[in-house]
């Protein structure tokens, strides 16, 4: 049968020549290769100080967004929880009281919102399902912890701050499936 990749090699049982049998030329070739690598540019990324740039499709820890006036986008519709294949998202809805218009964009909001990072598979369906642009996946990774309980991220951990410096920029974020990935 014809090879599809052209990478396979025909095995031959030919006897080794004298220069192959004394190994030394092969050893010298090997030494030359390792010496070339010795002077090559190193690929290490010094992790805590340097981080790798993530692509716009990278799916990390979620963020709950506010609009440009600092009001929470989320209306606790539950579509994210419904779309979540891992059942990682839970929320409790509440009604906005008069005088809280500067905090919540619409009449209904999530008073509690939790994502279990041990259940989450970072598929990004929640952000795709969200009709209010309230939830996004960022390039942060969930930090390690000692207890399972600490992996349940509560609303105050997920929600971005009001102040401009506390905002999480998601303008470069690309949702869905990367072009050409399927």
């Amino acid at each position, binding site marked *: 049968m014809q090879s599809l990749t052209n990478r396979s090699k025909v095995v031959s049982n030919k006897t080794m020549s004298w220069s192959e049998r004394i190994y030394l030329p092969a*050893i010298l070739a*090997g*030494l030359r*290769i*390792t*010496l070339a*690598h*010795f002077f*090559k*540019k*190193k*690929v*290490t990324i*010094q992790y805590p100080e340097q981080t790798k740039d993530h692509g716009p499709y990278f799916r990390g820890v979620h963020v709950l967004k506010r609009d440009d006036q600092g009001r929470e986008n989320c209306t606790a519709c539950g579509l994210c929880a419904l779309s979540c294949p891992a059942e990682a998202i839970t929320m409790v809805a509440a009604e906005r009281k008069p005088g809280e218009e500067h905090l919540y964009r619409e009449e209904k909001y999530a008073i509690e919102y939790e994502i279990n990072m041990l259940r989450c598979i970072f598929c990004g369906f929640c952000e795709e399902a969200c009709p209010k642009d309230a939830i996004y996946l960022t390039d942060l990774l969930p930090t390690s912890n000692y207890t399972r309980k600490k992996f349940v991220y509560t609303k105050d951990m997920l929600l971005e701050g009001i102040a401009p410096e506390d905002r999480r920029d998601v303008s470069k974020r690309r949702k869905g499936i990367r072009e050409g990935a399927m």
Partner: protein
Amino acid sequence: MELILFKVGLVVVLFLISLLIAAYSTYAERKVAAFMQDRIGPNRAGPIGILQPLADGLKMFMKEDIIPQNANRFLFILGPAISMATALMTSAVIPWGPDLNLFGTTVSLQVADINIGILYIMGVLSLGVYGIMIGGWASNNKYSILGSIRASTQMISYELAMGMSIVAVIMTTGSLSISQMVSSQEGSFGMGWNVFYQPLGFLIFLVCAFAETNRTPFDLPECETELVGGYHTEYSSMKLGFYLFSEYVNMFISSAIIASLFFGGYNFPYMQVVQENTSQILFAVICTGVFLAKILFFVFFFMWVRWTIPRFRFDQLMDLGWKVLLPLSILNMLITGFFILLNN
């Protein structure tokens, strides 16, 4: 009296230098390995990781020191002690520089210029196998004993070829004293190195040195894929540290022997010119520096080979030792004898 003081000082300095170089060899090994694998290597302890050996040593000391219940306590402790002691003892006969005229007498930069220096080295090197043998035996562990059996078999097999390749050098020098071997390599240009006259002997000696120090591709005694940790499976804490450390001391000493037997020791080109134009002390310092540079190159070579070549299989190792290296070294000896006869 001054001579004794000088020698004691030399011993202490040599001891410290051997330990220092061995300690930094562990660091260098990790760096070399990393560089050859396109990594950076340890760089957290101090600038570019320069304090890593200290951190490693501290870690070794802090670890729990376990002696297995069924192990022979005395031999279990004796094993690493012998390994370390024999590794350090070898440096006594290596000439680290030319003779000096101090205090009105001639002193050599060599702890003991015994006239059978090379025999002494071979003897002490063979003693080194006892450390591994006893350690593996006393551990009362199958993997340990297998590792130590491999170590002793390998050392005995390769010592023969090693000795034969040295015999050729002894024949051309006409002496067993290492200082004479080194000074005979000065030649007319400082380049009368034995490696040019004995390339085959050098190659055999080099391969045997790898086997003697249990380095890759001959590191079967501590082959972790088959034998867990080999002869030091049961060892922990600083006893393990001693075994690992003695390997590096051995590597340093082997490099020193290769450098002095085949690469002219402290001889270097334009040596006479330098000698005429500098003071005696400065000349000695330069010579020792040249010698150290040669040694460090071979230490690097040991590491370079380790991260290039995979491990031999045990039967291949035995084949190479008995069927290739030993006949070749005898052949080398015969050829050398033939040329000596021809010259006479």
